[in-house]
């Protein structure tokens, strides 16, 4: 029996498929560092801050290169160096409670932060590689895929991640909780979860927590002074005093005689000689 949620999801999927994939804007680049590009219809362009991401896009980073995308469903993915991800499907309708997200990790490492919309029943968030499928409901996890040996590694950061072999998506999978990891080799089932040492766990997060290292948001960035579009009043031509280059400074302001309006020392010299009887 088809539930109302599944029916809504089906309608949303049909609606999504009815439009060309390139016109469905599903997310926005929130942070970028180094080389990062978005491929659409075979053409790649720089993934600059604020650039929209559409369904069907391929996201790739260079070495070094990091990229964070915020999706319309508030979930976030962060790509590490030398990684490629395709956005295969992003269906989201907050009113109807529909959330369905499917991505493929072709190489490298991705960190996924899944929003609360995926707590609802019927919602699905999956990231696939050639050898594994990781699915979650409200969690954060990291996934690494090496196309050379085709091994996928999944690390749970918070919540629960369900990992299956791509060769047998309906077969037995494993549940990962925080700090646990599993790996999936080609044609194999996921290994039993093992707990990661704290230092190794931290390594998984390194570099993707603070993509851009605050540079684009810095107060110095685009500062009018740096850009030359504004000069603070104290540094303008009318306000800056030039070097004074005469001895005029020397005692000028407090020279009593000149303030009186007489020639320096004149009064005293003159009266000193004329007004007072000389000697004894």
């Amino acid at each position, binding site marked *: 029996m088809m539930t109302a949620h599944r029916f809504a999801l089906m309608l949303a999927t049909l609606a999504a498929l009815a439009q060309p994939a390139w016109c469905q804007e599903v997310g926005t680049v929130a942070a970028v560092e180094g080389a990062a590009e978005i491929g659409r219809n075979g053409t790649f362009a720089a993934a600059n801050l604020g650039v929209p991401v559409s369904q069907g896009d391929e996201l790739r980073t260079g070495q070094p290169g990091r990229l964070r995308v915020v999706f319309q469903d508030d979930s976030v993915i962060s790509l590490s160096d030398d990684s490629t991800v395709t956005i295969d499907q992003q269906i989201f309708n907050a009113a109807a409670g529909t959330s369905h997200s499917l991505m493929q990790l072709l190489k490298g490492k991705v960190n996924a932060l899944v929003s609360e919309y995926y707590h609802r029943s019927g919602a699905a968030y999956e990231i696939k590689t050639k050898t594994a499928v990781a699915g979650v409901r409200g969690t954060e996890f990291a996934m690494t895929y090496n196309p050379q040996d085709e091994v996928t590694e999944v690390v749970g950061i918070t919540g629960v991640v369900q990992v299956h072999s791509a060769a047998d998506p309906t077969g037995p999978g494993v549940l990962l909780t925080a700090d646990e990891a599993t790996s999936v080799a080609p044609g194999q089932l996921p290994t039993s979860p093992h707990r990661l040492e704290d230092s190794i766990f931290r390594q998984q997060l390194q570099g993707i927590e603070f993509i851009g290292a605050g540079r684009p948001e810095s107060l110095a960035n685009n*500062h009018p002074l740096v850009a030359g579009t504004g000069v603070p009043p104290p540094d303008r031509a009318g306000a800056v005093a030039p070097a004074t280059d005469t*001895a005029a400074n020397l005692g000028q302001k*407090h020279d009593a005689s000149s303030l009186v309006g007489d020639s320096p020392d004149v009064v005293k010299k003159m*009266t000193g000689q004329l007004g007072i*009887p000389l000697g004894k």
Partner: protein
Amino acid sequence: MRRSVIAFVALCCLLAAGTARASEQSQLLSSRGLVEFHADRIAKALELFEQAVAADPQDMYARYYHATARGRLGDFDSAIADLRAVLAAMPYLDQAALDLGVALIQTHKYREALPLLRQAQRTSDLDGEASLFLGLGQLRLDRIREGRRNFQRAAAKGENQRLTATYYEGVADYQEGYWASAEAHFAEVIKESPDSAIGREAAAFLTKIRRGQQQRYQVYGALGFQYDSNVVLAPSDEAIKSSNDISKQADGRGTISAGGLYIPWRSDHLQLSLGYDFYQSLHFKLSDFNLEDHGPSMQLSGHTGPIQYGVIGRYDYYLLESDSFLQEGTVLPWIAILDGRVGRTEVSYRMRRRDFKKLSFDVRDSFNHAAAVRETIYLGAPERSVSIGYQFDREDPVPSARLEHEGVFTESDARSFAYDGHELDAGVGWAFPYAVTADATYAFRYELYAAESENPLDNLQPRKDKEHQFVIALRKQLNEWFDVTAAFLGDFNNSNDPRFKYDRQIVSLTLGVRY
């Protein structure tokens, strides 16, 4: 059994999620905030960053974004508080050090900003901007040389801030008087960005520099009226006044002064100036006190960073009515150390030789050596200041051997005018609205004369003078060329020899012109 294991795992997950939820939530909110931030919807971004910080107060990245959003909205005090918290948690985060430094510069807390900007310099990507703001902070603190070095570093570190750093190199040069270098820097800014704000300001600087370089002369003059209560410095004691046949002492006089300065040579560091001053006083009644002075002078002056220095040579030739009265030569080397906007220190030595041409005054021919130091402290601006100074001088008579031989006076007569003088003065200067400035000075002078000045009325003690002098002056700049000054001088000389005990007040009104 299987169900209970799943339930246990689920419970563990919930507990784990409960402790980590805030951080995850703050990351989600921060990421959404970044989208708003880069779409220039800073207020909306701030709202999201605030929620992120509330969700996890320990999320220092969220706090950093919160700070920069506040800074972009002009709330630098709040940004500073956030950035301090970020740096306390992550002292190695040079980006936060840079932003805190920038925010402190924006709020004029230059001294606090400097160490943070130095920290940011160590990160290669931040070095250029950090050096620019560090230089700016140093410039505002009048540490101009250090500032220039950082502007040079900023210019070398990248295109982003190169032109602004070049502009500020020009400003530093201008403040230190390196005109050619300043001109070159401003010209570069104008060439590359003539229509920008710094391009326009650079053009304004260039105009000022060229106008200053073209003007190699200055002329000035003044017309004044003075009322002097004691033109002749008559003793206060009536009996002594009578015995010396002094009956008139108060008079009014008009004064005329005029002069000019010409700079035949100058370089970036040194200049030579030639001057000439003329002065004439015309008394209403005591016309035999009319004085005329012709004073050619020459000065070589220069500057190196905050230190200015020079030596002045001047010759004065005085006439009393139309008779030769006195010729005087003065040499005055000086040095002034400018302590930025704090104040300045002046040190000078003066050697003066007086040679009276009128026979009756030859007894006062002398050398006078004076060493002086004065400290001026600005109260926020050079126009508002207090100062204190001290001068020691020694009067050393040089009597004419010929006149001694002819019996006009004795060596002892001349030596009676030898003295050591100590003078302390303190003053305040203040600028008022409507281009009015006021100065008030008090000086105390103590002169201890040689033994030859022994006073029979004071147990043959040598003469000792204690002089108190007050000056109050109000000056108003009427326009670019003219000013008017009203002043009062009170002089009270208390001597143990009643012949030299006197008081005197002068009021004056002077109209000055300068071009």
